[in-house]
């Protein structure tokens, strides 16, 4: 760490231009941070307001006193632990399945040359161009045929059979890894799978983490899938549970809705904050990097 920073500093003396650059950087960062943070802060403060503080024409910034019991109500109503467990279960299975199957497929699409590869890849890209709503009815019929409706299976089993977006993402990363790096291994008689598992996977760890993260979030926030396939209240996920706070003719408790939203977001924020280093900076620290 220290070595790298000194390298940065000695690259140039502190000229005025450099200082100005720094100031501009931080100014831009702060400006965007406020923009990006604001809505979230508002979500958090709203989650602590009383109904009276929401029902005013002038926005209330700081609820006083903060209504912590909103969170108690929400976790009780959401059946929080149960729904969280269901959601985590779907996340674990989906992320595992996606990362495994997509990295395999991406390897096949990027580091092995075989006839028909590029045609299949074009078809892969093409599948993303069909709007999902028209696939829903045949897909439902298919899952019905499998006897999967009413179970969790339609929500995670397909993940083990890869998805176009993630294959494409990983393929792009795999393609940036210099060919001569693996050529040497081939000469040494390494099997293709060993190259994949022992060289490519560690090198592309940041990309794999990104795929895992996106996949996790998609499942975490997915409302439609669970809505369609689950019909037992005990199987519900957090995103599906959110709807319990919206009532057409009974008044939506925005404070509770926002509290529920915060409850859903906070674990992910914490997870992201503590793991991001490992997947954004991971590679350069492992020393495998060139």
């Amino acid at each position, binding site marked *: 760490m220290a070595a790298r920073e000194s390298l940065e500093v000695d690259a140039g003396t502190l000229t005025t231009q450099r200082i100005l*650059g720094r100031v501009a*950087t931080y100014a831009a*960062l702060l400006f*965007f941070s406020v923009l*990006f943070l*604001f*809505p*979230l802060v*508002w979500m958090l403060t709203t989650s602590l307001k009383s109904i009276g503080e929401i029902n005013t024409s002038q926005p209330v910034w700081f609820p006083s006193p903060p209504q912590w019991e909103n969170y108690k109500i929400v976790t009780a109503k959401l059946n929080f632990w149960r729904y969280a467990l269901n959601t985590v279960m779907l996340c674990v299975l989906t992320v595992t399945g996606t990362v495994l*199957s997509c990295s*395999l*497929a991406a390897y*096949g699409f990027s580091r*092995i*040359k*075989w006839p028909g590869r590029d045609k*299949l890849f074009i078809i892969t890209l093409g*599948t993303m*161009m*069909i*709007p999902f*709503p*028209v*696939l829903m*009815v045949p897909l439902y019929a*298919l899952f019905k045929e499998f006897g999967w409706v009413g179970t969790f299976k339609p929500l995670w089993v397909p993940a*083990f*059979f*890869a*998805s176009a977006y993630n*294959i*494409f*993402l990983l393929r*792009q*990363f795999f*393609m*940036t*890894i*210099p*060919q001569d790096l693996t050529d040497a291994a081939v000469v040494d008689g390494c099997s*293709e799978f060993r190259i*994949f598992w022992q060289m490519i996977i560690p090198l592309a760890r*940041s990309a794999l983490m990104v795929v895992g993260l*996106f996949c996790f*979030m998609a499942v975490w*926030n997915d*409302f439609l899938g669970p809505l369609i396939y689950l019909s037992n209240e005990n199987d519900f996920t957090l995103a599906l549970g959110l709807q319990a706070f919206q009532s057409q003719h009974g008044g939506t408790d*925005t404070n509770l*809705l*926002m509290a529920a*939203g915060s409850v859903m977001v906070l674990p*992910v*924020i914490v997870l992201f*904050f503590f793991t991001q*280093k490992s997947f*954004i*900076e*991971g*590679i350069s620290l492992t020393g495998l990097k*060139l």
Partner: protein
Amino acid sequence: MTREQKRNLVKGLLFTAPWILGLSIFTMIPALMSLYYSFCDYSVLNPPVFIGAKNFTSLSTDAVFWKSLNNTLIYAVVALPLGTVMGIALALLLNQQIIARPLFRTIFFLPSLVPLVALAILWQWIFNGEFGVLNHALSWFGIDGPNWLTDTTWAKPALVITGLWGVGNSVVIYLAGLQDVPRDFYEAARVDGANWWQQTRHITIPMISPVIYFNVIMGTIGVLQIFAVPYVMTGGGPARATLFYTMYLFDQAFRYLNMGYACAMAWVLFVIVAGLTLFAHRMSKGHVYYGGA
């Protein structure tokens, strides 16, 4: 086919086997069925009846179809370049040697974590013409802000802004790409006296071009199918100013029960997206640099 080629074919097929299975079962079967439905009168609840190309001919005279297509293309033309530039800019900003980098990264990524319902309510409130914070902020500069979401001129820009807020997704991808740029390239450039901009222009951008390519292609595909956020935030209003293609398709499929017609729309969109993606691909030829294969 040489033995080498044969071996590679077997290896390639083995590696892609899960996807080939998934592709055929979970995507191709539904896709081919929807292709068949596009030539049918199909209400979902009753069996499809083959009617030839009638759905496609009706599309050509459907004013709402043209309106939604128009809306979508306008949105795409504005949102896609903005999103790309902003994504790269933020990633470059975050990739510098700055204090509290993890914190800033988290902040820029936060919006992508907010559930859709909460996000919609949040932004409706921000864009509120009377009490919204956005107009409040504009008033400091003496600007009398519009009624964003209920004004036919401003509803689309409002959605573009909401979309930009979720740019953190692509920032994360760019950052992962930036980490892959070998450090010695920069050191060599610095020795040659290249400044920050020159390094960015001649090293960083070419080195992450595969990632930019990915984001542009995915952005094109995604932006033309924009659905969830406007569906919850504006429902297509005011006066269909934010009725996008996939929203109209959804209405036809699930609210008007004209699934056949919706499938025809889907395949028309498929052709458009494929065309535009191909165009983006052509444009990128020679600009995308692959270190590997």
